[in-house]
């Protein structure tokens, strides 16, 4: 469901476990999807992106999965480390526009316990 304000979804994992962060988006016209990580006191940092003509993309320790049928995006982090603790945002573009305005989701708080 949708949360507002300070009630962000949270995920707590042990160091070394794999993490999966999920995101539901609503705009069926979106064709570009990004995951950003934001640590406390810092600006968002790009992690990985995927376009709508793909359903999976892998990076270093991270994998993004896209299911356009149900408008669902997920971020998988392998062997999660304490440095991965942050707020993770799924971001979509507007689709069908020249400059692709981005819309950030509300974020998921990931806490990694040593």
């Amino acid at each position, binding site marked *: 469901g949708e949360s507002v304000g300070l009630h962000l979804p949270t995920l707590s994992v042990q160091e070394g476990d794999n993490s999966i962060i999920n995101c539901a988006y609503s705009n069926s016209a979106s064709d570009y999807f*990004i995951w950003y990580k934001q640590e406390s006191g*810092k600006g968002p940092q790009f992690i990985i992106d995927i376009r709508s003509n793909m359903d999976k993309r892998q990076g270093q320790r991270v994998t993004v999965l896209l299911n356009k049928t149900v408008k669902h995006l997920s971020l998988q982090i392998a062997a999660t480390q304490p440095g991965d603790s942050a707020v993770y945002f799924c971001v979509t573009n507007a689709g069908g526009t020249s400059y692709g305005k981005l*819309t950030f989701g509300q*974020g998921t708080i990931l806490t990694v316990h040593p």
Partner: protein
Amino acid sequence: EAGVAQSPRYKIIEKRQSVAFWCNPISGHATLYWYQQILGQGPKLLIQFQNNGVVDDSQLPKDRFSAERLKGVDSTLKIQPAKLEDSAVYLCASSFRGVAQGDTQYFGPGTRLTVL
């Protein structure tokens, strides 16, 4: 490569006062964005520049917010007069071209504004 620079990092003002934020994007980046991030929420785009022209300012409260990028490089965002609800982190980002071209947006550290 230097990142996006923003100043000041923190600002505390009283309501009805004015405030200005400055951003210097990554060298060579044509597109510059200002976002507002309220505590507990994701960043929301306020305005997007392509070189010195405005591409999208549909979510900028134009009665009190203004922004400029006169020489197509650095930019200032101004709030006049400030309201309590303007308390937020103001983030600047830049990209080489634009999102439609698949260019990554790089964010600065933000300016945390508190309006009392």
